């Protein structure tokens, strides 16, 4: 194989490697249920390998949690019930999309808060400049230029 060929294979490996890591096991015949299953798996964090969802992870714990999700869907539980099941056991950290709570409220409010602080600072700054210009205009040197 030429050097180009080897390179192409390696590049393909880089791209496909991550695609293979994704949990592609078909758990349900019903596409709607399979979609729910995959979506829930992508929402839940694998706590054994903390920056992966349970869909991405090959850790044994992730496999166990996928099994729980699968069986809860089969038993007719709602998405909210499945999330609650995980929350009761692993806490907020299990959710990849965090909830708002008293403990992390500041984090959620921070962008709005910073925007308000910035706006106030800007208003102050502009007002002060405007007054300074007014003073200059009315001052003794006004109009000489």
């Amino acid at each position, binding site marked *: 194989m030429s050097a180009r060929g080897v390179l192409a294979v390696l590049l393909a490996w880089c791209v496909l490697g991550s695609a293979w890591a994704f949990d592609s096991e078909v758990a349900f015949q019903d596409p709607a249920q399979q979609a729910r299953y995959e979506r829930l798996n992508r929402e839940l964090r694998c706590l054994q390998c903390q920056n992966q969802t349970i869909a991405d992870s090959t850790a044994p714990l992730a496999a166990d949690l996928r099994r729980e999700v699968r069986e809860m869907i089969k038993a007719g539980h709602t998405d909210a019930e499945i999330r609650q099941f995980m929350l009761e056991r692993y*806490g907020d*950290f299990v959710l990849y999309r965090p909830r708002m709570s008293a403990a992390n409220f500041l984090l959620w409010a921070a962008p709005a808060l910073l925007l308000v602080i910035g706006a106030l600072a800007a208003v102050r700054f502009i007002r002060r400049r405007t007054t300074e210009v007014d003073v200059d205009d009315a001052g003794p040197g006004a109009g000489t230029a």
Partner: protein
Amino acid sequence: MWRYALPLVLFVLLAAALRIGLYRDPSVVPSPLLGRPAPEFSLPSLHDANYPIATGDLRGRPWLLNVWATWCVGCRQEHEVLLQIAAQNVVPVIGLNWKDDNAAARRWLAELGNPYSAVAEDRDGRVAIDWGVYGAPETFLISPDGTVLYKHVAPMTLEVWRNEFLPRIDPARRTAEAGS
């Protein structure tokens, strides 16, 4: 004056917050079980599948639940400490053998010594999920009325035992005695 003091104060606050963050271990996840009733289980004993180990039988005294497995490196590391803790006879140490091989687990205990009053076998890992286990070894302290008092994630050390576990065990025992 304040236009010089304010940035300084903000800087000190930020530096303090970052310093705290520097010494926190992000891999330790706080357990939502603390202060809540310990999840019930009844599992076969590692040594005799016909003999069930149930949380209900452990009521009335404080006890430890140690989650371990032969595939877990940290478990081997803490094993000596568990033997020492068990030898102190303060609380029974119950083992939860997590997703392990029965024969391998028995061999481990035969070779390294058995610190456990009883070992429950959680072959499919369901009980571990109920307990929010995410990485062995984990050690829980359960009060006489079945409340989770403390959880330690990482190999046990005598320091953790002295500083975190022992101070919580005596008050728990006293409350249980006063109540009965």
